[in-house]
């Protein structure tokens, strides 16, 4: 049993957590020393966020032991763990946008800190402690991302936190802001606070962290001081898995240029140009928030842009809204299938037939041909092996993979020339993933082209014919996934 004065602030041993159908954490053990920066790396879905949520008390672990600051923690709530001295800074900050900086720091503790004046005074002290010059009276919605992060750090300090967990803190920071963040983290460590630093970016990990835990598929792969690891080792440990079984052979049927995008500018995108060939799978890799989704949304006419020139089959076209894009033979499977893809209260059939409805309605009244509709949704259900009791079953009751297949089926019915897939396999089990990969293969073999966005690097690298690196709203490099190494690609992705 750890004592209060143990060398370790946090000890997790043999923690397990399963969700229906998935084992999210499998026998995970991690130890974090007092006053160290502990890097936690792993791909999306490796189990990092589940781990955090167990620590904060959003989820309850199935088995295992968590000892924090000498105390065994069985069940906890986010509020309790905050008061115990463990703060988590999530990627999407826990801040009320409409309130001031000071009040966000001391939310719910207005009386304790002595009213409005005390709030702002103490907030000032905390912000000064991390060397931040943000006005405590500023509204959070007017702050930049890095400033919001400072507020979160100040908030963590206000709870006298002994452990601060930062989830991808650098994902939308500029180089200068990052430097400042590092300085603050080092300062915190000097004050005896431990930091768990979760990141994709290996450079940061090597620069900042004292020790590292690498996770993959719910397991801890390795945990050692940073000095004992090389960069190459780390990448293999992060990514290294039996790839052969997970991806079908890469389709090779690239033809001539189909789509040409140039001069794409908006508030997040800067002079983006790229080409898409017939029968090609074009992968866009980049960090979350790098501008990948914005690029394809702009192309699809879903967002306002300052300028964009699109040529389809050599002819300039104007895409003002998604309807124009669809008429040109484009299709978009959006990243958030529940918010943007599906009409949840509706049946599987209506969700599939949604885009094709116009084509199967006829006459001056545009009567939808009911039998054709049934036929087409049934066809997609059978083709895509969507597991559903019937076409009338509400789509909300299906599993993630089957939901995604509904969105895909909707577009396959339109036989699109350009299919844009934004995170098509997020939150989907392995079996369904493979089916989606096979489907992608079938589409390009039938002459379609695909733009693939994914946060899972192996997925993009194994499926694409060509890869574009996206960083801070620009395309920073073009690669051949077969010949170019992961390192060179990641270099460009990280900017």
């Amino acid at each position, binding site marked *: 049993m750890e004592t209060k004065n143990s060398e370790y602030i946090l000890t997790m041993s043999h923690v397990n957590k399963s969700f229906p159908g998935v084992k999210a954490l499998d026998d995970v053990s991690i130890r974090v020393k007092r006053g160290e920066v502990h890097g936690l790396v792993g791909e999306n879905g490796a189990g990092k966020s589940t781990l955090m949520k167990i620590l904060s008390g959003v989820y309850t672990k199935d088995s295992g032991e968590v000892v924090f600051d000498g105390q065994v923690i069985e069940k906890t709530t986010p509020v309790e763990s905050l008061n115990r001295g463990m703060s988590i800074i999530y990627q999407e900050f826990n801040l009320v946008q409409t309130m001031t900086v000071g009040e966000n720091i001391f939310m719910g503790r207005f009386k304790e800190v002595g009213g409005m004046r005390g709030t702002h005074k103490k907030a000032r002290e905390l912000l000064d402690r991390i060397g931040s010059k943000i006005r405590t009276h500023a509204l959070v919605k007017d702050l930049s991302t890095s400033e919001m992060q400072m507020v979160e750090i100040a908030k963590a300090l206000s709870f006298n936190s002994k452990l601060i967990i930062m989830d991808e803190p650098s994902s939308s920071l500029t180089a200068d802001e990052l430097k400042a963040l590092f300085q603050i983290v080092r300062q915190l460590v000097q004050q005896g606070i431990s930091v768990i630093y979760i990141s994709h970016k290996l450079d940061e990990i090597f620069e900042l962290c004292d020790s590292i835990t690498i996770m993959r598929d719910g397991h801890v792969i390795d945990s050692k001081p940073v000095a004992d690891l090389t960069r190459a080792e780390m990448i293999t440990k992060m990514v290294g898995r039996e790839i052969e079984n997970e991806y079908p052979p890469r389709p090779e049927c690239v033809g001539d240029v189909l789509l040409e995008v140039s001069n794409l500018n908006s508030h997040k995108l800067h002079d983006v140009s790229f080409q898409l060939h017939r029968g090609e799978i074009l992968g866009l890799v980049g960090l979350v928030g790098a501008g990948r989704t914005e690029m394809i949304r702009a192309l699809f006419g879903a967002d306002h842009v300052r300028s964009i020139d699109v040529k389809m089959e050599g002819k300039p076209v104007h895409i003002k809204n998604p309807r124009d894009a669809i008429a040109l033979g484009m299709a978009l499977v959006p990243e958030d299938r529940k918010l943007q893809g599906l009409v949840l209260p509706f049946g599987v059939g209506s969700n599939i037939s949604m885009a094709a409805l116009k084509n199967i309605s006829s006459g001056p009244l545009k009567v939808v041909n009911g039998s054709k509709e049934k036929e087409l949704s049934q066809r997609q259900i059978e083709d895509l092996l969507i597991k559903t009791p019937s076409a009338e079953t509400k789509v909300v*009751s299906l599993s993630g993979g089957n939901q995604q297949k509904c969105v895909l089926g909707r577009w396959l019915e339109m036989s699109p020339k350009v299919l844009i897939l934004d995170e098509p396999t997020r939150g989907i089990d392995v079996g369904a993933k493979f089916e989606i990969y096979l489907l992608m293969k079938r589409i390009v073999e039938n002459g379609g082209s695909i733009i693939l966005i994914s946060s899972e690097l192996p997925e993009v690298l194994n499926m694409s014919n060509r890869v574009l690196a996206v960083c801070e709203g620009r395309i920073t490099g073009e690669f051949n996934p077969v010949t170019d190494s992961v390192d060179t690609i990641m270099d460009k992705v990280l900017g």
Partner: protein
Amino acid sequence: MKKTQKIDSQTVIRFIMDHMLVVILIALAIITAMVEPKFLKVSNLTNIMRQFGALSFVALGLTFAIICGFIDLSIPGMLNICAVMSVILVNPLGQVGALIMTLIFGLFAGFLNGALITRSGGTTQAEGLFITFGMSQVWSAAAMLISDGKTQQLRWCDKPYTIFKFMGSYNVFGVIPIAMVLFVAVMLILNFYHKRTYSGRCMSLAGGNKTAADLAGIHVNVTIMRTLAIGGMMTAMGALMLVSRVTNASPTVGLGYDNDAILSVVVGGTSLAGGKGNVLGTMLGVLLVTLLSNCMNLLGVSSHMQYVMKGAVLIFAIWADNRKNLQSN
């Protein structure tokens, strides 16, 4: 043995919960018929069907608006202006002209609601709520203005107003009011529109998820405007039914119709969240509301207690709906 019994009782309860409306309707009718035999008399039933007129059309229109994700509060004002207008226009345009103009006006006013909501970028119910409420004020005031605040009598018209009379008092086979027949016809048309036509399907899909509908190539703004325009026209129809029945048009006739219509629609099973619902359910809802008043009148309950009843039913209806949704998810 015990287990099967338990399941049986559960299925019975579920069936009752699912068809709550019909069950309540039948129970209400049976109880009233037992206590007050007058209820089943042909004259009373005809009376119920006639009362059905105005509210049913208004509720149909509102059903569409709510399916599309908006609550149309312009109903009272629209009823006021349409009613007054239809009477005033008989003299200059003749009765056919007056009828047609009123319907066109309703269409236009509904379209205006839609245009204001979509142009302002309002995608939430709250925004639509306040804008349509403002429109209700505008139309009410306009009705006052053109009628000079006086109730307009049909019999003041110099030209014939036989269509109004016909719609208000003719009974098919001597028992079924023509208003009822018209309503059923319109309801079937709207049901066809909603379930079978492309525009109708767009309406539900847009109500279910505007972002997803837009990304799937549905013209959401046009859909909203079209839906609210149909809603406006239905309200105008309701106004015409009202005028036909009472042969006059007060510029404040629409007061309270918004509550009744919302009650009917919600009780009829249309979800306020948008997307789900149908006009047949609304018909049952309207039936319940009218039957409720009728039964209570027959049973001698004061008209004031009916307000209490309606309020309670409204809250109970969404509470039950919410429970059902929680269970199914």
